[in-house]
């Protein structure tokens, strides 16, 4: 099997890379450009006064950071999840279970700290 | 239960109490904190009793429970374990400490009820008991020293407990610094003993002590014990280091009762008794101890006669009584010293607590000139105080009589004693009777001089119960050491229990000329002291109850002498003029000329050199991270090329 996957990944890379390059070149000539109102950024109602650098809430990137950290913790659970039953059968279930429990407690502590510190509040 | 467990509980119970109250001192209320602390000490007391019972059941020669928890210090020859010993001497001490300690904790619950830092107070108190137990139980001088320093710390903390008051904080500081002088001598004494005998274990030191009396002043035993004794004068408030104890009355009154009457101040006496074989081997030291003890007993008593502060009077009385103990130790009567230590713990704790009760009733008023006729307001306090009074002036059959009489007898009869020492002792007893009666009279009897706005009242039961228990002990406490002459005429011939109990632990003075007093002499001596004390008390009663104007006349007549005594012989001023101020001046000069002009300049030059070098290297530190990364890369290049070229 692996080879099927490998081939596919190769194709995927080709699509992802080559297609972008081709399209970028096509975009160079194919797209219509202009200066009229038609080509202005879409605006609803009165034309906007402010420049393009709209202020964006730092919440978004804070969410992204917390996502990374929790995502990794979840990824750490995957190898545990697929081996947990094997560990139980080999008699090490308790040790590994407790190890994961400690990890989960850290996780839960972190999550509830974030909730309590209002890092996840949106308004 | 096995002994090490008992010992661990005995030691750790107060420490746990300290931790609980100490870590939660903002949160624990007075009842909770007091309850925890009292229970902690009471657990220790139960352990002490159990250990004591075990000790009693052992054969007389083998009465020793030693536990070593772990090895603490091991440097070459110096091997110190965390070892603790219960033997007849320390057994008495732990019973007194935990027993009296429990009562005083109980008293404090009520006494300190309205204080903000009450949990802190109980934490300190528990810590004190913990350190005191280490001091008492420690099997080596080093372990003892740990406790010694620990109780010093707690004493400092508790004297300065109301540290927002500048004077009280200063009193704590004074106690601490004065003790430091003694402690330094104590350390030196330890060094001398270790250099000579190669051990600091108390038991081994006693075994190794020279069997022949040392004549020289510079012999190891003499020098070592002398230095240790200087340490003891600091802790036990003897001449010349007694000055801190009267000031220490700044602390809460139960603290005065526990630390500055019953337990800590007796540590010096206890230390001498522990090392009795070593001290016996140094007759010169013994002489110094006896003389200083007798001098202190008289000296402090004279000051006590002129004081107006109820606690100050008791403080000088304590100094004086400690003098008695040292006198006893100095004449080789270690048993008598321990006996008086114990009875004194009972009645002096009682009197301090009683004074606390009075102060409580008088709304923090301590001046006895503003008291009087409190008898009718506070019957229980008065009655128990009365028992204490009888005990301290040495009226038979109260506790003080037996112990004081034993000391006086030994001072007269011991081979190390001298009739002059006896005479000093009797003088002290007479004066004690005088000033104590004066205190009683001014406080409880006579006409009321209480200001109108103060309404004295009897204290709550939490405070009176300890008083009653201690009062009882002040009466019967002496009955375990009844001398043979008296017991001979009593029905059933009660034995001298304490003497027998301590006998195997104590060495008798090294002298073949051991006088043995006949019964007649003994009766005579006893009679003289009792009668003189009674007369003195009667005179005082006459002065202060019947004709209160007489004392003033006498004071006027004495003129400058009275002034000198009432100003405590200007000892504090003397110390300032002769020692402290010159020292400060010297330090200032040293600082100015040596430190600033010489040492500092050297370091400046060194610093300039380093800075000069640094400013060269500083150019590398551009703050540009990329350059730093390049340095790392260059380092990697260097390492790799080294590895590859090799």
């Amino acid at each position, binding site marked *: 099997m*692996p*080879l099927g*996957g*490998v*081939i596919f*990944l*190769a194709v*995927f*890379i*080709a699509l*992802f*890379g080559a297609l972008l390059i081709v399209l970028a070149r096509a975009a160079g000539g194919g797209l219509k450009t202009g200066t009229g109102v038609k080509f202005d950024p879409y605006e609803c109602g009165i034309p906007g006064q402010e420049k*393009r*650098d709209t202020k*964006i809430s*730092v919440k*978004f*990137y*804070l969410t*992204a*950071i*917390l*996502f*990374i*950290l*929790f*995502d*990794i*913790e979840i*990824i*750490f659970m*995957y*190898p*545990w999840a*697929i*081996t947990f039953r*094997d*560990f139980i059968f080999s008699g090490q279930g308790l040790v*590994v279970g407790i*190890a994961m429990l*400690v*990890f989960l407690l*850290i*996780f839960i*502590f*972190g999550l509830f*700290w*974030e909730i309590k*510190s209002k*890092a996840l509040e949106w308004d | 239960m096995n002994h090490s467990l008992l010992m661990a509980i005995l030691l750790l119970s107060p420490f746990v109490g300290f931790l609980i109250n100490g870590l939660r001192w903002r949160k624990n209320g007075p009842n909770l904190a007091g309850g925890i602390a009292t229970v902690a000490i009471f657990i220790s007391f139960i352990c002490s009793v159990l250990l004591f019972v075990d000790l009693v059941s052992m054969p007389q020669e083998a009465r020793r429970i030693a536990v070593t928890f772990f090895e603490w210090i091991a440097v070459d020859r110096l091997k110190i374990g965390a070892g603790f010993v219960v033997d007849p001497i320390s057994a008495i001490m732990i019973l007194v400490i935990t027993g009296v300690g429990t009562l005083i904790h109980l008293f404090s619950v009520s006494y300190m009820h309205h204080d903000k830092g009450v949990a802190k107070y109980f934490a300190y108190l528990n810590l004190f008991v913990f350190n005191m137990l280490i001091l008492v139980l420690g099997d080596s001088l080093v372990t003892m020293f740990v406790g010694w320093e620990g109780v010093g710390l707690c004493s400092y903390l508790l004297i300065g407990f109301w540290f927002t008051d500048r004077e009280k904080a200063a009193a704590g500081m004074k106690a601490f610094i004065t003790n430091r002088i003694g402690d330094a001598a104590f350390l030196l004494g330890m060094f001398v003993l270790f250099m000579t005998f190669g051990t600091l274990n108390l038991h081994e030191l006693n075994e190794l002590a020279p069997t022949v009396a040392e004549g020289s002043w510079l012999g190891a035993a003499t020098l070592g014990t002398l230095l240790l004794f200087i340490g003891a004068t600091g802790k036990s408030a003897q001449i010349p280091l007694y000055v801190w104890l009267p000031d220490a009355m700044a602390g809460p009154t139960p603290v005065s009762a526990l630390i500055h009457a019953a337990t800590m101040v007796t540590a010096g006496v206890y230390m001498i008794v522990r090392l009795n074989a070593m001290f016996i081997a140094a007759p010169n030291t013994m002489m110094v101890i006896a003389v200083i003890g007798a001098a202190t007993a008289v000296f402090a008593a004279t000051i006590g006669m002129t004081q107006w502060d109820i606690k100050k009077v008791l403080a000088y009385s304590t100094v004086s009584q400690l003098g008695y103990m040292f006198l006893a130790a100095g004449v080789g009567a270690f048993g008598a010293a321990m006996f008086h230590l114990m009875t004194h713990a009972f009645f002096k704790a009682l009197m301090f607590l009683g004074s606390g009760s009075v102060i409580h009733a008088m709304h923090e008023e301590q001046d006895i000139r503003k008291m009087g006729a409190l008898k009718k307001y506070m019957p229980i306090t008065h009655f128990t105080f009365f028992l204490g009074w009888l005990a301290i002036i040495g009226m038979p059959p109260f506790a003080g009589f037996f112990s004081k009489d034993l000391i006086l007898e030994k001072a007269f009869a011991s081979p190390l004693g001298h009739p002059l020492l006896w005479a000093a002792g009797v003088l002290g007893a007479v004066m004690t009777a005088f000033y104590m009666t004066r205190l009683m009279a001014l406080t409880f009897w006579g006409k009321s001089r209480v200001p109108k706005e103060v309404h004295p009242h009897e204290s709550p039961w939490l405070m009176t119960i300890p008083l009653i228990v201690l009062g009882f002990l002040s009466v019967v406490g002496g009955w375990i050491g009844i001398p043979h002459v008296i017991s001979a005429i009593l029905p059933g011939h009660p034995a001298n229990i304490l003497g027998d109990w301590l006998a195997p632990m104590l060495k008798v003075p090294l002298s073949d000329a051991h006088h043995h007093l006949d019964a007649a002499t003994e009766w005579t001596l006893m009679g003289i002291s009792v009668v003189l004390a009674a007369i003195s008390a009667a005179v005082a009663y006459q002065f202060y109850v019947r004709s209160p104007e007489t004392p003033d006349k006498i004071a006027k007549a004495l003129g400058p002498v009275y002034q000198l005594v009432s100003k405590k012989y200007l000892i504090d001023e003397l110390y300032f003029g002769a020692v402290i101020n010159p020292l400060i001046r010297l330090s200032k000069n040293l600082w100015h000329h040596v430190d600033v002009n010489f040492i500092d300049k050297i370091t400046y030059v060194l610093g300039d050199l380093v800075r000069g070098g640094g400013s060269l290297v500083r150019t590398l530190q551009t703050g540009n991270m*990329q*350059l730093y990364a*390049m340095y790392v*890369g*260059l380092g*990697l*290049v260097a390492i*790799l*090329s080294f590895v*590859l070229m090799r």
Partner: protein
Amino acid sequence: MTADAFIFWFLSLITLGSALSVMLLANPVYSALSLVMTMVGISALFVTLGAYFIAGVQLIVYAGAVMVLFVMVLMLFDLRAELQAFSRGQISGALKLATVGALAGLIGGALLLSAGNVAEPSMAEAAKLPPDASKALGIVLFTRHIFGFEALGVLLLVIAIGTVALARAKGGTHAKH
């Protein structure tokens, strides 16, 4: 030319190309997208090496999380192409390049030196990992490396708390320029 070799050369071409564009492109957003490309290429290389689970994790963590954060921050700052992408200073630049060159030469040299000494098994002959590598990975992770696992848990907790604190920080220690 076997499939193995073809895939390897193809993937390394893509990976190197996108890695170069990470370094060379003046627009940081393009750099970031090129880096995503590189990550995906490396993930595919992991697949050729039989590390399926790690390849998946590489996609989830790097491409799916870390680089999203990068792109998000870039868009937050709204950074366009820079006039000067590379740092100034010709001497220091030359020095830096020389360092890189020396390091590259040394590593290359080390590889060449070792090439002669070590027998080189090809992909097919290489020692076989257990067939179910993700399970083996789990078992080794939770027996031999369990301490590292717990320690990383704590690290992540600390960072989760620290970043929130940082994100909230109002001022710094420096005066505003």
